[in-house]
């Protein structure tokens, strides 16, 4: 009789949850598909296809075929109701042991970070020895939903017991009922798109068009250079026809970016600064990050790139206009730094998700602003400036694109690799803003 894999525990000693000491949760590596602008290269791929591909690429990279992973957590911001078990279904499509459990996570654009952070905590507590966290999104595979009026008719038809009732229900149908509702990026409570929200924040913080364009340009150039020197060789596995992110413009210039017309905040007239060039497009793609305890990694000869140190979620009240929709990470970072006894300047790398160039720049400016830090963050002094040479050094979402739930996995794997190269003890800060006025930030430490 062979050992029952369901009962194996590789942890030595007592788990923290059972009274033992906390242990490190380490980032072993990651994998993602190239990201594709929506309705393009991945138009016929589903969320499940993409997530399965990202997982299978991870399995191939680390030789995990047939392995029972402690837990897989991932999610999609926009998905079909039939994909209620998207992650579990994707796991069943991989060559992982099919007794690998999986669950869904969803906190908008920070989904990947929440998935990874939650799993890391379980590993630190000794509940898991290994885990895969990530996410996927495909605007090309978005569900179309009957509008509420049509839904009301259809539900009535469903409830109808007699022929008469059925006929009555059917007679309520109108041509307008056929117009489906497509998912959007509008905030339900304000009716404003994310871009319109950010346009207000960008304007309030006085972020110039040029500063935004420069940030976008740097993102493209940094990422193209990283691809060219093979940095992504062990982070990306091609999918379909793509071998690189197809939003990436290696040959972009400030002049080209400056020629674009404003796309958001057009009501600001001359002062509108946000264009398609300094905002991320809707994107399709998936990512996955392999986490584990040190013992689990060592037993399999797997690399240890970084410790997942801590993460923090914040939310702001954007509805009444008191705070910008995407400013929550500014708050989360302040709390995380305080908890960990660190300053904003202690980091070797900063990975601030570029939802919009304006988001990054407004966040940086807020941390330097005495009044904001005192009034909003409750600090005696501003968090201060960061060394911009350490920001998004291998590009970020403006270049790669931003398949909502996949971005956390992209950033975590990229940063872990950078920190490992930098050396043991190096520190990295992740900041990801999300719809609903939320955001998740995290600290990784190089190994």
């Amino acid at each position, binding site marked *: 009789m062979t050992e029952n894999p369901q009962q194996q525990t590789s942890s030595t000693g007592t788990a923290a949850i059972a009274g033992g000491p906390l242990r490190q949760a380490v980032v072993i590596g990651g994998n993602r598909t190239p990201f594709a602008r929506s309705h393009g290269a991945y138009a016929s791929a589903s969320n499940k296809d993409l997530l399965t*591909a990202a997982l*299978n*690429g991870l*399995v*191939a*990279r*680390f*030789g995990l*075929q*047939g392995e029972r992973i402690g837990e897989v957590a991932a999610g999609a911001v926009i998905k079909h109701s039939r994909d209620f078990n998207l992650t579990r279904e994707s796991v069943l499509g991989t*060559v992982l042991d099919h007794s690998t459990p999986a669950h869904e996570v969803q906190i908008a654009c920070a989904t990947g970070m929440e998935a990874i952070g939650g799993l890391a905590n379980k590993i630190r507590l000794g509940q898991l020895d290994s885990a895969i966290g990530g996410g996927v999104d495909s605007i090309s595979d978005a569900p179309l939903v009957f509008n509420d009026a049509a839904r009301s008719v259809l539900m009535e038809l469903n409830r109808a017991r007699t022929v008469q009732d059925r006929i009555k229900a059917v007679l309520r149908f109108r041509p307008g009922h056929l117009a489906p509702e497509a998912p959007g990026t509008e905030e339900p409570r304000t009716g404003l798109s994310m871009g319109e929200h950010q346009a207000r924040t960008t304007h309030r913080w006085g972020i110039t068009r040029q500063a935004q364009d420069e940030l976008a340009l740097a993102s493209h150039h940094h990422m193209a250079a990283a691809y060219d020197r*093979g940095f*992504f*060789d*062990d982070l*990306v*596995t*091609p*999918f*379909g026809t793509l*071998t690189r992110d197809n939003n990436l413009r290696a040959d972009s210039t400030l002049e080209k970016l400056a020629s674009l017309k404003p796309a958001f905040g057009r009501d600001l007239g001359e002062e509108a600064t946000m264009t398609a060039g300094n905002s991320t497009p809707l994107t399709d793609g998936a990512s996955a990050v392999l986490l584990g305890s040190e013992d689990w990694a060592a037993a399999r*000869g*797997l*690399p240890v790139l970084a410790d997942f140190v801590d993460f923090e979620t914040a939310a702001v009240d954007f509805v009444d206009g008191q705070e910008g929709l995407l400013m929550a990470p500014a708050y989360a970072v302040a709390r995380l730094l305080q908890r960990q006894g660190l300053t904003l300047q202690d980091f070797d790398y900063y990975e601030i998700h570029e939802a919009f160039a304006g988001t990054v720049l407004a966040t940086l400016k807020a941390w330097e602003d005495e009044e904001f830090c005192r009034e909003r963050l409750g600090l005696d002094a501003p968090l201060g400036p960061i060394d911009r040479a350490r920001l998004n050094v291998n590009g970020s979402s403006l270049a790669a694109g931003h398949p909502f739930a996949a971005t956390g996995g992209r950033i975590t794997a990229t940063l872990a690799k950078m920190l490992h190269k930098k050396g043991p003890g190096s520190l990295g800060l992740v900041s990801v803003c999300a719809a609903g006025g939320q955001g998740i930030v995290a600290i990784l430490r190089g190994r």
Partner: protein
Amino acid sequence: MSTDSYTALVNQPLGHRLAQALGLPQPAILRRHRPGAPLVDGPVLVLGGGPAADEAATHLLDWGQDVRRHPAAQDRYGAVVAAFDDVSTPAELSATALELGAVQRQLGGSGRVVTVYQDPEGTPDPAVRAARKGVEGLTRSLAHEMRQGSTANGIILGEGISLGAPGAAGALRFLLSGRSAFVSGQFIPVATDGGATPRDWDRPLAGRVAVVTGAARGIGAAIAETLHRDGATIVGVDVPAAGQGLADVVNALSGSALQLDITAPDAGERILAHCRERHGRMDVVVHNAGITRDRKLANMDADRWDSVIAVNIESQLAMNRAFLAAAGDGVVAAGLRIASLASTSGIAGNAGQTNYAASKAGVIGMVSATAPLMTGGGTINAVAPGFIETEMTAKIPFLTREVARRMNSLSQGGRPVDVAEAVSFLVSDAAGGTSGATLRVCGQGIMGA
């Protein structure tokens, strides 16, 4: 996978009669290796009077074969081993050659003839060398005369090496088996008594870690699959752009994938680091990755020329330097085994392929010069495929393809697995007596024969 519907046609009753009536080629369905299948279909007849005949019989009995030492008119043989190791004048070829001829029609489909003789270069005596060299001519011609998927090949014994040597036994077994389905008219030199007999002939690579470059598809994928079938753990390497195919291949084989451009200066180091970290060892390297950028030399540009040379040969030289420097370091096996993909284009030349042929002939030169540098019983050999049915050759225009695939003694193209079988044999301990050699897998293609 194969686009060769003609072979399928002539292996049906009507098609067979049609081809016969029209005098068209009649390619047979070749016997290929399956784990657990008999080594040879039928009794093996051993001819010749030298020590090799007795040694062959001993090996065959060890392998549980039905061995016959004297021909009988009613017998139908699976294979004939003809030992010429004792010939010292051309006149002495006669007896065994004619005995062999007399039983040739008694050989079954996908039958085997294996001749054994001593290295002509090993003697300064004109008569002896003429006799030994004569065996080569006999074997090659007989290979042309074989029918129904049968082949004829030879084993060349080095000075002082008997057929009892492990490497000679390995060569004999390979040539008799379905593993050598598309090898005909070829010679395997066994120059040393190096190597060992595997514990399990169906898993000669058990416990080994094998790196296969260009593993994402085609011949590379077949090599990875075959080495894995034979027991090896696979490290699949391919360019990042081929990562999706690579992941699929590796996942099916429970191996690990390394996306890497082999022309990167640190490619060898990165492969070593991957093997060290993930698998703790590296026993086998198969340099399969290669590209074609065909143009007549008059139309050749630097980009086409240089990229083919860089990928197909310079990268291998650089990686081998790194691997050899690390051999015996506790991770890289002291007796590292390397196989490298050459091509019959590198032997015979091919219009439009000056760059490719330069790189592939370069591989043949590289393995012969690297062989003496191998330490700890390590070996390096090349495999030169002829026309193989791959995605690449499927793109050749129909008529050209149809002609190309018939221009060999088996009247058909080989399969990727045929190349893979030769590679798997050469990187096994059973081929430990062979190094610096190039084995053609071409069905005795007329190109460069």
